[in-house]
């Protein structure tokens, strides 16, 4: 067994090493992220069987909680960590094949992965803020890394909203700290019943905004399309597959484990469905495919949050299983979409639907992969999305909002419309021939394989997700496993 804390420590170390290596050689730094993330993955996997029931507690400086910072990994967090590291690893391989970049890019990338992993592994509220900030700041950098007008503008907008949002998040932490005297998540969760309602409400509001920015909740998500569109394709993948997933984890942890579904969840319920509808409507007539994908991404997050918030209506493990399935589907599906879109454009950054005409014919692989990505997001059978979509609908039904299924399906029909339009466009007419590099292609194929393999045989993912959902659902087990028997 290797302590998972090394995941963070090693990443930080490697991130620090990168600029130094950059002084030695231009080529060396790009090898650092894959190695680092691979090591991380191995560390995580070696801990796989250690995690059962509640959370696995990794203390720092040997002090038991609630005092001192510590990591608390339960299956839910573990799953997200695994997801983040896997996607991160694939992306790092992808960057190997890219043109030589500033070595600081690799540092930012590694920090980004580190931030996301830290968020899902930490058991300390303030620590999560720190990781959130690492995540955000590195994201600003990553979005801007293209250094052209669009990416810079997107980065700045993201920064403006992100900075204010995370500050409010910090304020929420402080409010909780003042009323409980603790920063440990489990401890706060334990003490939650003692806190007066008004404080809870206020803290909940602050968290809602802080996390809402991250998970692209409706009025706070205005930065998202701009940042997605401005960023380069792989970064967009990262935004949707890693960063927003970390946000989802945080939302689940804070609103469910800590607040135990108090008030804020109901707001999330309404905002989630509104986000879903507005984003899909906005995507409906969008001519810029990348921006369209961004809206779609927001919409999926909205649906995810909506399903998540249903827990306040009916306590059911299945709802959590569903959000995990949705998150996985979105991570891989949207990642595949952004990457294959990049392949279709051939790096020209011309995302308009007309300029993509016929690109699927000249680059068949990318066209097919784009189609697969779209299908999984649309929830077509034989793709993983089918199961997540059905699960989402079952969750909605279980919570008693059976007529909302109709609404969700109607809005999904918009998805069919705009994705179908793009698919049809890329397969009609004659396009310029572009080649996709072997590594690039194989990364996308791996994404697609995940989607198809688990679409055909979803059994393993189901059981894995179910276990993770149980870990999230049984918050008392989580608390006791960290705080010791009470």
């Amino acid at each position, binding site marked *: 067994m290797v302590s998972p804390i090394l995941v963070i420590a090693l990443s930080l170390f490697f991130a620090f090493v990168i600029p130094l290596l950059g002084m030695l050689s231009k080529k060396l730094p790009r090898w650092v992220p894959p190695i680092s993330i691979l090591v991380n993955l191995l560390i995580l996997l070696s801990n796989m069987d250690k995690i059962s029931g509640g959370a696995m507690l990794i203390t720092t400086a040997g002090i038991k909680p609630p005092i001192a910072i510590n990591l608390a990994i339960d299956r839910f967090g573990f799953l997200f960590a695994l997801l983040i590291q896997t996607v991160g690893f694939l992306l790092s391989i992808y960057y190997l094949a890219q043109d030589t970049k500033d070595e600081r890019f690799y540092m930012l990338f590694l920090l980004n992965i580190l931030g996301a992993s830290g968020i899902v592994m930490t058991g300390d509220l303030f620590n999560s803020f720190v990781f959130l900030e690492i995540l955000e700041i590195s994201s600003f950098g990553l979005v801007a890394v293209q250094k052209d007008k669009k990416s810079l503008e997107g980065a700045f907008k993201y920064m403006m909203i992100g900075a204010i949002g995370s500050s409010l998040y910090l304020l929420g932490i402080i409010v909780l700290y003042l009323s409980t005297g603790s920063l440990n998540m489990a401890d706060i969760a334990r003490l939650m019943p003692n806190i007066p309602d008004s404080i809870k409400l206020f803290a909940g509001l602050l968290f809602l905004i802080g996390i809402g920015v991250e998970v692209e909740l409706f009025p706070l998500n205005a930065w998202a399309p*701009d940042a997605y569109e401005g960023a380069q394709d792989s970064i967009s993948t990262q935004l949707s597959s890693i960063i927003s997933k970390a946000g989802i984890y945080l939302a689940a942890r804070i609103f469910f484990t800590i607040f135990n579904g108090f008030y804020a969840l109901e*707001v999330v319920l309404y905002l989630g469905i509104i986000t879903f509808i507005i984003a899909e*409507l906005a995507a409906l007539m969008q001519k810029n495919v990348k921006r369209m994908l961004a809206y779609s991404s927001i919409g999926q997050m909205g649906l995810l949050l909506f399903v998540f918030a249903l827990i306040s209506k009916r306590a059911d493990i299945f709802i959590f299983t569903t959000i995990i399935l949705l998150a996985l589907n979105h991570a891989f599906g949207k990642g595949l979409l952004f990457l294959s879109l990049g392949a279709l454009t051939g790096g020209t950054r011309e995302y308009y639907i007309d300029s993509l005409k016929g690109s699927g014919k000249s680059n068949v692989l990318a066209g097919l992969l784009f189609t697969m990505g779209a299908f999984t997001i649309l929830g077509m059978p034989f793709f993983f999305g089918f199961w997540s979509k059905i699960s989402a609908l079952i969750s909605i039904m279980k919570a008693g909002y059976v007529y909302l*299924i109709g609404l969700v399906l109607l809005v999904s029909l918009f998805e069919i419309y705009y994705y179908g339009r793009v698919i049809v*466009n890329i397969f009609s007419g004659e396009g310029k021939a572009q080649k996709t590099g072997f590594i690039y292609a194989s990364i996308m194929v791996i994404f697609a394989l995940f989607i198809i393999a688990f679409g055909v045989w979803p059994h393993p993912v189901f059981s894995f997700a179910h276990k993770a959902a149980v870990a999230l659902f049984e918050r008392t087990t989580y608390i006791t496993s960290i705080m010791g028997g009470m």
Partner: protein
Amino acid sequence: MTMFYILLVFILTGLLTLFLGPIKVLRNIVALLGYLAGSALFIYNIKPGLIYSLNIRVYNIHFESGFSTVFFGIIILAVFLIFLLASFHEENDGAYYLFAFLTLTGAIGVLFAKDLISFFFLFETMSLFSFLMVLKGKNKNSPKSAFKYLVWSVFGGYAFLFGTFLKVYTTHSVMIGDISFIGGHIKLLILLLILTPFMVKAALMPFHLWAPDAYSDSKDAFTVFFSGGLSKIGIFGYFIALFKIFTEIASKYPWFLTVIAWLGGITATLAGIYAFMQDDAKKLLAYSSISQLGYVAVGFGIYTHYSVVAAFFHALGHAVYESLLFLVVAGVYYRVKTTDLRKMGGLIKKMPLSFIGLLFGIIATSGIPPTIGFPSKWLLYEAVIMKGDLLLTSLVFFASITAFLYSYKLVHSIFLGKLHKEHRDVKEAPLGYATGIILLLIPLFVLGVAPGIAVKHIDYIIRFYLKPELGYNLTTMTTPLGHVNFPVVGIVMVSMFVLSLIIYFIFGSTYKADQTDNYTATEAISDDFELHYAGEFYGFMRKAFGRPLKWSFEKLLNAFLKLFAFIGEIARGFYMGDARVYLFYLVLFFSLLAYLMGGKL
């Protein structure tokens, strides 16, 4: 378990052709063998009453086979064979067979499904891969048509899903089972929603908009299966929805059935009218297919033993002759590379077998005895009159007259008239098409003379749900209104034909005239003179119909879509592009929530 294996065989065949088949011959052989294996499994092992469940963690897949499974399964498999035969001559690649076999998997799987989620899964599989098949298409318009098809079929699928969830919510059972005991009108909503995808698949107006384009723009061989085979799933769905899911529809909501019947009648009529206005063979056939499927809806809407038998039989007939027609057109396209009716003509001398196929195809489409088209139409009329809806009868009759119009236009424009000069060296359609044509001609006549073979099976399917009233044996049918002995009709016709031939041969002699030897007000015409009247065929009917012909569901739908687009534009306006505005949203949101919570703070 066999049911599962059958599906597996089809999927594996598809994958094999994808990976193993860089050589066309190999691919074709693998496809044929896989198909034969699967269908042999089906025919020998699938008996009514098999049950199989498979647990994939949260969902259980339930399979069950009934009489309807066997009936529709055999139709679909048979049409698929025709499709395969035609495919040998199509431009195909690995993905072609993969998509085709997965479509088949979905179609056969739907017949097995016992619970609604598996049903949806397999139904969507079918829709999805047939969409990809259309997307591969044959011309520039294919992607657009495919898109239309996708949107419509997904629309249907989602409606089905919504209905499924409503059903599960109200009855706590995901199985295909009765909902008529549910209180309130929600059961009607469920029925309507569950029926929607089938109305889409069976192209019932106003859900038909995808069909003409998708049929005409998909690969010719695939259209055979698309129209002949896949639309049967729609019919199967009617059966599921009206008999298995809402068993008491006739007593609870008789008007709903009337609406279906009338929609069917309107579909049959309007599609017939559109059909004879088309100038493209495949479009024409597409509308003809829609029109014929309208009769089936009428049969289900009448909801008596007679009418439902008629509907099933008509579905069977539709599979036979519509496949035949599409197959012939595919063969013709293979040779002359066009489906534009205005650019063909006089091919009868070059492609006699195709002509015979098309001729009997249209005879059956028009419902003339002694072909397969007649028993169902006869029975349907009797059923509608017995129901007492004379106006509907008239409407259906009108539709069947339109069948004569478009049938004639088709056969005339392709095979009759003057041969085009560039088609002088055209040969008969190749072996695959020819075999298919001959194979299809057999049931076309056999079932037309002895409909009892099929009616017996149909009766098994529905006698459980409706009081068996129709009297039949192998060759006759009896209703309270009348009685028909089909072979007698056939024999009378054949003997009359022989008699006429005798008269013909007794008198005089004939000589063979060249096509330029024509009455052209005694003008001399050369070989390349365009004598063929094919453009604006029935053009005068445009005047006869006048303005109403310009009305279309499509325009209505487009107006509706514009509304959504408008809303979409408004929604998009939220993302202004100015960062300060975004910040303002945040602040506003914060203030708003704070204000709302103000009381509680």
